[in-house]
């Protein structure tokens, strides 16, 4: 491995560490990394990709549900429960926190709170998506190494 590659791997490791330090990802992401090996070398990226593909539907439904008058808090909570579950499964920590806040507002039947928090959910969701896409792309460019699945 040449020096450039080594530098890339170091950079990737630092970026990965920043995700945890800055609270974007939690322990569950490490769990996913532990499920990755030479027989399933892209497992983490596959799960994350599946999440973003799958959850777009929930966000769309939530958007629609938030347009209705009056708001159906029970349905909103149910949709968010599922979305939160998926976020939790990939270790999306900040997204999960906003989801919890949203559900709290649902329980309190606070429409403004729900709408405001939903914007935060979408923002965190999109931010994480961009970060992870860049991260996986870098990992692919750097070439195979234990980067994405090195235990902490």
């Amino acid at each position, binding site marked *: 491995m040449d020096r450039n590659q080594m530098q890339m791997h170091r950079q990737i490791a630092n970026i990965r560490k920043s995700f945890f330090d800055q609270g974007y990802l939690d322990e569950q992401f490490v769990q996913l990394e532990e499920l990755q090996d030479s027989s399933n070398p892209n497992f983490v990226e596959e*799960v994350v990709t599946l999440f973003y593909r799958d959850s777009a539907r929930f966000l769309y439904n939530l958007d629609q549900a938030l347009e209705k008058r009056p708001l159906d808090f029970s349905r909103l909570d149910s949709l968010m429960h599922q979305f939160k579950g998926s976020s939790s499964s990939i270790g999306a920590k900040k997204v999960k926190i906003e989801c919890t806040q949203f559900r709290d507002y649902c329980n309190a039947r606070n429409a403004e709170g729900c709408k405001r928090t939903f914007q935060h959910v979408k923002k965190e969701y999109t931010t994480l998506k961009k970060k992870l896409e860049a991260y996986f792309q870098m990992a692919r460019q750097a070439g195979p190494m234990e980067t994405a699945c090195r235990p902490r």
Partner: protein
Amino acid sequence: MMINDDCKTLHVLAVDDSNIDRKVIQRLLQISSFKVTVVESGSRALQYLGLDHEDDNSNRFHDLKVNLIMTDYSMPGMTGFELLKKIKNSSTLREIPVVIMSSENSLTRIDRCLEEGAEDYLLKPVKLSDVTRLKDSILKSGSGEVNGNIQTNKRKHKSDQSPLPTSIDCHNLTPPSPQQSLEKRARL
């Protein structure tokens, strides 16, 4: 019900309506050397287990013998709890250990599941260590029943540091002696 000592042939049926969770649980189980079948709903699970064909019970199991069922609690249509009940009420399937997976850390819910015959209750997201522990339990029991090694730190309600309620003590916290196993079966 016979359990093959070769852990590679233990067969788990996993039930979850979430795409992502199905993918993850499948991988968790695969990496722990289980044979895995994943379905997306309770009704599909019952179909797979042959419970929906009342007249065709005899040789359903030969190649498909399921050693463990892991099901999500919150699912549209049939919940994991309802699936648990159907399995435990079936004379042919009741001995299969059923584990519930849920994101809710609710003591009430946990109690209900255990009372209904669930062997364990796992908080989502499920970890590799949970699956390893389950596998050890099944292999150790050797009778198709998991030893109910419920980790108290998982089951405790976050704000509740008190000991486990006695409703669970009777059949899950100690390894079943032959006498206890008999009593448990008689109860069903």
